[in-house]
């Protein structure tokens, strides 16, 4: 696979400006002649669709939920980073850039990250102007808080509902364009295939989830804003509907898939409680601003937390990482939690949990202050666990949260298929091997508001305006393939539900390709996944027809793709014989148990190319060069 990242020449501060000048433009009067499909309506999709609509393009926006406001960006809690330096604590674009590259364990592309930091400030301005009710100081200015992996306060927030408020802001801009008739919404529609004609992405095939109708849509470009693939683990903090289907179909049509093994395990989630559990709930990283994480010093100490004296407590993050304390990056915190639980010092019924304790903060700041900052999170915790976190410490454990891997994109956010773009969590570009807290919202909105609207014009201006009809043989072929697959799923008539296969796959992935990975575990997974897949295609049971709302059928289609995608993920984890960020290979660690990178062998992006049903995918690399942030052993001590 030929990879040209198209990184502009020049110093890092000037790359984006120079590039923007060189990008070709589409005449304002001609924009309405171009149609663009946007799949997904989260922060990236909604902001892109709205901005492209504002520019005058004809936009078609597809999503599986009933309203664009429901996309899972809505669940992001803690905040959004920007290099405003409003707190006068030494922040700058360069520092945000540096922190993000370092936080990503030197596996991100410098030029992209610098641009992200550059546009971060405009995002805050945009959201404020939209009416996002960010938290304020008494003087009326914007308030900030701290997040993991940074020593400055640069995170803007709206209580514990920042994602919701930013998404509703993007949604309001989107609905304004719906009213202006530049954007047409297609709710409850799932993309089942990407249509590529003569090497260019020219449309998609969708299934109407209410009527079951398969339909083709043609356009001049296709933007995938379809989120991450964390649900490959079954249990994750993702919404139930999040899936890899759109990205995976693009991969099968020739889009390179980058670093699929880079998944983020978030340290602070409510622990698992039973077999029937359907999802995991995150407790925002912002809680680590005021909460202190600890376990008993003694193994299997069964005492209530209130009965454990200070001297018998181990504040292990503060002990191991005095400089960053409880605010070390997510990958580091998650591994430290796993380590103390492996030593039998975990708390709660399962022993898979640690305390997140607010008693010091409540004593210092008062309960009301804590309530103001985290009220909705405490409320949610209490709803789920029936415990009052104002009185007893929260119990938390790491869970799958975000996927840094995704479709490979160049500097213009275009995949290896001409005219097919990937934005937000769906692409791989900015977070390297570990994403810092409050950076996902930043990246989704950066891509959608301020990057894609510029770069896509360059492509359209060069590709020109050529109409294509959905009667084209390529569209018909994709529709038929989608239909055959649905018929096949319904005709198996076996004994097991889609969920039972999904759970089985999830367990396997968590054990063998989760927080810690090793050669033999990964080999094991590589042997097991095809077996689960085979069982799926022989023993799946569905009910109900294809021509009405059929949620089991939807689920089956998504699980079928996860069952293929999982193998790619494991293959990638196996090939990357180093530890970096969220990818921890047990074979590659320091004496203190920290991740050990191997820059000599792995300072690159791994990009997988689909080679057909029965052929092993090919691994290409994009070398990563660090001209500004010189890779060093990441230290938060």
């Amino acid at each position: 696979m030929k990879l040209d990242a198209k990184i502009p020449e020049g110093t890092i501060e000037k790359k984006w400006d120079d590039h923007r000048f060189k990008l070709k433009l589409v005449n304002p009067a001609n924009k309405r002649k171009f149609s663009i499909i946007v799949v997904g309506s989260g922060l990236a999709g909604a902001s892109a669709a709205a901005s492209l609509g504002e520019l005058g393009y004809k936009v078609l926006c597809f999503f599986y939920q009933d309203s664009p406001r429901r996309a899972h960006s809505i669940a992001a809690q803690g905040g959004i980073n920007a290099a405003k330096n409003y707190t006068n604590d030494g922040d700058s674009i360069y520092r945000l850039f540096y922190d993000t590259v370092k936080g990503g364990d030197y596996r991100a592309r410098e030029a992209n990250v610098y641009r992200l930091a550059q546009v971060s400030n405009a995002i805050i301005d945009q959201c404020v102007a939209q009416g996002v009710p960010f938290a304020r100081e008494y003087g009326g200015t914007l308030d900030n808080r701290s997040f993991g992996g940074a020593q400055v306060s640069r995170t803007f927030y709206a209580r514990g509902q920042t994602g919701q408020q930013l998404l509703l802001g993007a949604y309001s801009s989107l609905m304004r364009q719906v009213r202006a008739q530049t954007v047409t919404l297609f709710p409850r529609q799932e993309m089942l295939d990407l249509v590529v004609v003569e090497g260019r992405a020219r449309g998609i095939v969708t299934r109407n989830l209410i009527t079951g109708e398969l339909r083709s849509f043609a356009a001049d470009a296709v933007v995938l804003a379809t989120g991450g693939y964390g649900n490959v683990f079954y249990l994750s903090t993702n919404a139930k509907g999040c899936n890899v289907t759109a990205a995976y179909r693009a991969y099968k049509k020739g889009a390179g898939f980058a670093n699929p093994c880079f998944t983020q395990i978030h340290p602070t989630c409510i622990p698992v409680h039973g077999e029937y559990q359907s999802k995991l709930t995150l407790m925002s990283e912002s809680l680590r601003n005021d909460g202190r994480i600890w376990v008993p010093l003694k193994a299997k100490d069964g005492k209530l937390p209130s009965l454990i004296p200070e001297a018998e407590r181990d504040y292990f993050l503060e002990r191991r990482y005095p400089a960053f304390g409880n605010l070390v990056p997510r990958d580091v915190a998650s591994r430290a939690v796993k380590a103390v639980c492996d030593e039998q010092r975990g708390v709660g019924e399962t022993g898979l949990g640690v305390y997140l304790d607010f008693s010091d903060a409540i004593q210092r700041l008062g309960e009301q202050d804590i309530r103001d900052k985290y009220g909705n999170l405490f409320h949610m915790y209490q709803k789920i666990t029936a415990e009052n976190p104002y009185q007893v410490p929260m119990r938390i454990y790491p869970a799958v949260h975000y996927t840094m891997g995704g479709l490979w994109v160049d500097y213009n956010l275009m995949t290896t298929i001409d005219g097919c773009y990937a934005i937000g969590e769906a692409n791989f570009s900015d977070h390297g091997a570990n994403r810092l807290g409050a950076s996902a919202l930043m990246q989704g909105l950066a891509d959608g508001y301020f990057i894609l609207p510029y770069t896509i014009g360059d492509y359209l201006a060069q590709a020109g305006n050529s109409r294509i009809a959905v009667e084209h043989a390529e569209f018909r072929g994709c529709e038929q393939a989608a239909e055959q697959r649905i018929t096949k799923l319904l005709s198996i008539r076996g004994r097991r539900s889609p969920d039972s296969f999904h759970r089985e796959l999830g367990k396997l992935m968590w054990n063998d390709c989760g927080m810690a990975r090793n050669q033999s575990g990964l080999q094991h997974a590589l042997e097991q996944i095809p077996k689960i897949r085979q069982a799926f295609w022989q023993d799946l049971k569905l009910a109900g027809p294809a021509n009405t709302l059929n949620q089991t059928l939807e689920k089956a289609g998504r699980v079928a793709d996860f069952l293929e995608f999982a193998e790619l993920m494991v293959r990638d984890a196996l090939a990357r014989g180093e530890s970096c960020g969220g990818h921890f290979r047990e074979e590659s660690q320091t004496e203190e148990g920290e991740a050990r990178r191997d820059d000599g062998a792995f300072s690159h992006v791994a990009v997988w190319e689909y080679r057909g049903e029965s052929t092993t995918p090919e691994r290409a690399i994009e070398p990563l060069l660090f001209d500004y942030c010189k890779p060093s052993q990441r230290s938060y001590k």
Partner: protein
Amino acid sequence: MNYTLKVWRQARPSEKGKLVSYSAHGISSEASFLEMLDIVNERLLEKGEEPIAFDHDCREGICGMCGSVVNGYAHGHQRGTTLCQLHMREFSDGSTIIIEPLRAKAFPLIKDLVVDRSAFDKIIAAGGFISIRAGSAPDGNAIPVAKEMAERAMDAAACIGCGACVAACPNASAMLFTSAKLAQLGLLPQGQVERDSRAREMVRAMEDAGFGACSNHGECEAVCPKEISTNFIAFLNRDFIVSSMK
């Protein structure tokens, strides 16, 4: 724990629906309401019956996708809770639980417990925004907002658009939903320029979509999972009257 469910089943809008009884046995008290439905659905599938269709997504109380009427209450009897955050420990062992869709003329039924709430999107499209192009915003701190105002705007902005307020209202009014957006934007300095037209156009869209009028029952606030205050309805009324006098 064991429960008897009576669930509204309706294959499509054109067919007649009815309550069908199912046994939900051996359910952990720690399971969420939707996990209980998952278990029932798995068992239905095992028997070759079609599972109960219900909307859900984030399962952490924020996306607004879930919501059914449980024992007469939208999202169930627990205050300030979405259906996905309601847990089975809130129901006594052996009880009967009646589950129906959110009913309103403006929310046509799709299947079983799934309804079409796109009328809400139409209300927002009518004016639930501040007209600002990407790229044209002034510095975030150029417009100071009093902390108290920002907090009140946030109280209103917390709406998740689930539609429980409409289902609970005897008039199937969308006043709480509409007023929450109007108040959020109307309380902030950024939202002043379009304040009048916003009130007029959102109220018109609400009426056009077939929602009823408000007659101060207050059922909406009682079921709202985000406990949004009916004070915002007073805000709407004020803005609407002022705007119609201009």
